[in-house]
Every structure is written in structure tokens, then in C-alpha cells.
């Protein structure tokens, strides 16, 4: 009886929360439905009308999208950038994170304070000099150039996150390995990396999503090397005339990070919390 009463009292709360959740889901769902409306109807049809006449939906837009070489190429470029920079970042940052956590060297705390200071540096500060540098070194408009830039700007957060995690690894494990004569590199590869896997996973997912979703870096340092965001952006300049291309392209561009997020949600949230609450 008491439970029923409590449930009844909570009714409005449940309703309000359900409403909010719906409010948060609707926009993305709307984009998906828009992407299913055939090009000929798109100007006169709001996506919600699809719900009452589902027969008009078609996957034609998606077929056209994947037949469009520019956009499939852009998707591939996005994968290259996101995967490539994540791997490099994880490696470089775990090395440094280990040094900050377990090696003694003069100026360690000062250097780590520098890392923390760099956390908030806006990447706008680097755009112009790196633009010139890339033009002089041939890195402009290359996937490698974009990867290197992303690694650099991911580093402060990555080192911060990993150092804080590595420092929590029990000292005894490391000490006994050292006494057994294991070299630092061996300790790093055999002990730290496996033990640090949860933090590394968080970092990798974070960085993957972050760089998959990047626009400004690719827009600045690429012309023909276009990830999907830039490709959509160039389509967007004629918005209204080609929603039938933009809607499915946007949906594909967000479906992949969304799947990654849903699959590894736990790690993503852990990384977020470690990065902000600590």
C-alpha cells in the first residue's frame, strides 16, 4: 500500500523525467527521419509527418550518399585520423604519464604543473603558426599533419589522466619488479600498460570521439583531405537545397561515435569524471 502511494506521489516526477528524456532524444531522431524522406518530398515534408505516413520513407538517400565518392572518401579519412591519432596519443601519453607517476627526476612537479596549465590552452592559439609550419614542411593537407596536431592537443589531458591513474597502482608491485631487475621499459610494457588498461580505454574512447568530431583543425589544415565534418560543412554552404544529402551524411557521421559511446559508455564516463572532478 505504502509503495503504491509513493509511486503515485512520484507519478508527476516520472512523467516529467520521461518528457525531458524524450525532449533530448527527439532532435536526433528527427534528423534520422529527415534522412529517410525522399529528395522530392523533403521541402514540403516535416520529419514528424513520416510517423503518420511511413510509406514515403526510403533508403535512397543513403544509397546516393554511399555512391558519392567524396563522402565515402571523407568517411575513410575520418577513420584514419581518429584511429591513427588515438594510437599515437595513447603510446606517447602513457610513456609520459608513467614518468610523471613513477620516475624521479628534477623539476617533475614543475613540469606537471606546466602540463596542467596547458590543459586549457585554446587551440586557436596554435592555428596560425602551425599553418605556416605545415605549409613549409609539406604537412599541410595531409592526414599525418592532422594526426600530429590532434596528438599534441590531446596530450595535456591524456598525461594528466594517465598519471593520476598510474599513481594509484600499488607501489609494491613496481618495487618488487625493480628488485627483480626488470628494466623500466619492461615494467612499463609488462605491468603498467596492462594494469592501466581501464584508464587507457577511457582515454582512447575520449580521444577517438573528440577527433572524430573535430571540425576546426581539419578545416584549417586540410583542403582535399576532408573528414566527414568538413565534407558536410562544404555541403552546408548551400543548405536548403541538399538536405537529402546533409541529413544522411550527418546521421552517418554521428552514428559511429554514438555506437562507440553506447558500447563503451562506462569508460567514457570514467574518463570524464577523472578529468573533471579530480
Amino acid at each position: 500500500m505504502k509503495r503504491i502511494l509513493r509511486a503515485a506521489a512520484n507519478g508527476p516526477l516520472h512523467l516529467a523525467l520521461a518528457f525531458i528524456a524524450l525532449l533530448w532524444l527527439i532532435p536526433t531522431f528527427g534528423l534520422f527521419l529527415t534522412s529517410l524522406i525522399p529528395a522530392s518530398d523533403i521541402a514540403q515534408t516535416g520529419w514528424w509527418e513520416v510517423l503518420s505516413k511511413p510509406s514515403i520513407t526510403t533508403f535512397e538517400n543513403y544509397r546516393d550518399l554511399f555512391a558519392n565518392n567524396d563522402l565515402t572518401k571523407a568517411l575513410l579519412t575520418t577513420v584514419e585520423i581518429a584511429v591513427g591519432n588515438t594510437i599515437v596519443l595513447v603510446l606517447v601519453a602513457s610513456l609520459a604519464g608513467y614518468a610523471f607517476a613513477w620516475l624521479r627526476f628534477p623539476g617533475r612537479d614543475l613540469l606537471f604543473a606546466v602540463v596542467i596549465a596547458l590543459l586549457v590552452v585554446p587551440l586557436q592559439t596554435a592555428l596560425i603558426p602551425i599553418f605556416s609550419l605545415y605549409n613549409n614542411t609539406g604537412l599541410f593537407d595531409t592526414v599525418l599533419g592532422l594526426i600530429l596536431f590532434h596528438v599534441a592537443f590531446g596530450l595535456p589531458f591524456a598525461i594528466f589522466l594517465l598519471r593520476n591513474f598510474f599513481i594509484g597502482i600499488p607501489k609494491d608491485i613496481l618495487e618488487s619488479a625493480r628488485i627483480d631487475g626488470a628494466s623500466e621499459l619492461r615494467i612499463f610494457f609488462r605491468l603498467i600498460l596492462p594494469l592501466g588498461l581501464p584508464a587507457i580505454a577511457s582515454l582512447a574512447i575520449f580521444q577517438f570521439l573528440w577527433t572524430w568530431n573535430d571540425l576546426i583543425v581539419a578545416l584549417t589544415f586540410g583542403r582535399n583531405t576532408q573528414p566527414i565534418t568538413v565534407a558536410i560543412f562544404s555541403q552546408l554552404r548551400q543548405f536548403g537545397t541538399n538536405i537529402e544529402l546533409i541529413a544522411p551524411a550527418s546521421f552517418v557521421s554521428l552514428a559511429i561515435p554514438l555506437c562507440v559511446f553506447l558500447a563503451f559508455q562506462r569508460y567514457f564516463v570514467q574518463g570524464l569524471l577523472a578529468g573533471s572532478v579530480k
Partner: protein
Amino acid sequence: MPGAIADASVRADSPPGPRAGRWRRRAITAVFLAPAAFFVIVWLVYPTVQTVIRSFFDRSGSQFVWFDNYRSLFTSDTLLTAIKNNAIWVGVVPALVTAIGLIFAVLTERVRWSVAFKIAVFMPMAISLFAAGVIWHLMLERDPQQGAVNAAIKVARDALRSPGVLTAAAPSTPALEGSIEQGFVLKTPLVAGQTALLGLTAIPPDEVPKGARQAATPQPVTGAITGTVWRDFKPGGGTPGVVEPGELGLPGVTVELRNAAGTPVASTTSADDGSFEFADVKPGSYRAGVGSKTFSAPFEGVSWLGPKLITPAVMIAYIWVWAGFAMVVIAAGLAAISREVLEAARTDGATDWQVFRRVTVPMLAPVLSVVFITMLINVLKVFDIVLSVAPGSSQDDANVIALAMWRTSFGGVNDFGLGSAIAVFLFVLVIPVLALNVRRFRREI
């Protein structure tokens, strides 16, 4: 470390002492740190210094111009708009996101399906700000046929005040005068027993109400005023002011009877054939007409993406993305608050609101400030979402510092001097947060 290598080789013959061990350790440290140092120096430290220097040179980079770039930063209209907009962003968004996150986090604590709720609200975090902008651009389209937000407003509007039957019409003969706003009234006063012919034209064909039938010629009734309101138009002509075969009555039209002073004294609604009747009309002369309630101006949609509302529109999209972040972080902080403290407060008779206000919020203060500061930084750097929500025509009105920096440097103007100055300005703005972070860290160790 060339010195280290030389030093080690000199002492190669002597037994490895503590000194050699130290160099070895340093070499190992260097191996671990060198890759990160390379990236940080080349992509972060060097460019920052270079940008500061570049900001004192002119567009071509050859002329040292002192503070000229900074002067134009604070005098050019577009840049001032950007600074003003960013100030609004800073004033509104971090506080709002933190508040929304707090409310969501507290509310979800009380339901079992909180995980599902959190995923729904958090999901936009996985989407690029750019794609989120595309989504909201679509949601906020002006045309209620396309933009869901305006479609919803239209539905609410129509539900609140009963919509008129028609949006446009004009009198078919000069016998009727007035306008859509005031209604159309017959010039000639009527007394009981007479009939009124209210002919309208210029009605969009798709607005003729469903169920409209052939208009009926009004028949006089003793003691009543009768009449017909109809669409006085048929393809190929016809005589204005006369009900003819092929002309449709207008059902649902509000017909008013006004007294000599012009005040409506009675009103009725026309039938399917357009006919209406005012029975038991008191002696005196009246004027019959079509009431203004018949007409409603079509809802054209709120111009969210126009110059006036564009910044709030972009903010809606941005809050939609970041609310989940605030909620998740605050919820984690909430979970860490000891249950005993809350229970103790409740046992002492505190209401839910008092517990929230006096216990929960103060205990969450550190987490709330972290969320607030994180959002502050994010808001200063807001960029992609403005590009994708705002159509080209209102991008000047939606401008923010980070976007202005990019547009000045790479978006056609290509002024690296001024662009660098904007970047330095942005950097200066984040320095307080940078100092705060460093201080917090120093306190920790």
C-alpha cells in the same frame, strides 16, 4: 643530452658509481618524456610564443605595428559583436548548464530507470558539436512545415485560441466594408425580416472549409435577420453580389450583428450552405457582417535563425549537448555525499527542499564549481556549433571570439596579424582558469 653521454664515456673504465646510475636514470626518464616533450614544444609552446609575436605585426607580417591589431580588435564592429556575444554566452550558458545538470542529477536519484534517463540526456555528448548544430538547424527552421519547434508552437497556438476558418478574404462588392482585422460589415443597415448577402472573394481555394455546399439564397423570415455568407466567385465569371449555382457557402464563419453604435449584439456561425439566422431580433436597425474571429493570420514561424534570435538558438543547441555532461559529473558527486548526513537532516525534520538547499548544494559546491569552470572554458572556445546552426546570413550576428579568430585568419580575410591578436585575447581570457587549476594542483601535492 649530449653532456650525459660524454660524461658516461669518460667514466666507462671506473666501476659504475652512484653518479653513473643517476645519468642512466636520467637517460631513461628522457626516453619516457621525449616524445611528449617533442609534441608539446612543437605544437603548443612554440606556436603560442609565435602567435604572441605575430600579433604585433601587420597582415603581411613584415611591419611591426605595436598594438594596432589589438586596437582594431576593440574597434571593429564585427569583432565587438563577437566579444559582446561571447560575454552573453559566458553570462548565461555555464550557469544554466550547471543548474540543469544539478536538477537532472537530483531528480534522477529518485527513480529506478535513472540509467536510461542519463543515457538519453548524455547521448548528445558523443555527437560532434557540428552535427548537433545541423540537427538544431533543422529543428529551428522557420517554416512550420519543416522546423519541428515552430510546428510545435503552431499546434500550441492553434489549441490555445480557436483558429479562424480563413486567413484571407476580400468583399466581393462595395456593399461590404472593413478589413480582416476589423471584420467586414454591410454598409446598409437592416431591420428584422430583411436578408443579408455577405459575399467574399480572394479566398485561397485550399481554405474553403471542408463540407461546404452550394450556397443558398437567403429567404426572409419574419422577426429575424437571415443571410448567407458565401464564396462569391466561380470560375469563368458570374455576377458579384448574387448567389449563383456553382458558388459554395462558407461554413463555420462567425457572423455578427452590430447595433447602431457598432457594438456586436449577437453572433452566430454559418451552416454548410453558408446560411445563418438571427431569430427574434429586437426592433431597430442593425448592421450584419463577418466577424474578425473568422480570420486568423497564418503562423509564419518564429525566425530562430534570423539575426535577432540566432544567439539564443545556438545556445539551445549547445545546452542540449552539454547538459548531460553536467548531469553525469554532478550525479557522481551526489553519490559521494554520505547518506548519513542526508538521513540525519531528514530525521531532524528537514523538508526535501531544505535538505537540497542547506545540505546537498553546499556539499556539492566543489563539484558544481568544477562543472561551472569547465563550461566557462568551453563557452569561451565555442566555435563549430555556431557555424552549423547559423546560416551564412546571420553568422555575423552569431559571431563569437573563436569563430571571429578563424574567420579573420582563414575565412577569406586572411589577416594573420589581427587573427593572432584575437587568439592572444582568447588565451588571456583563459589564464585565470589556468592559474586556478595550477594552484589547485599545487595544493594537492
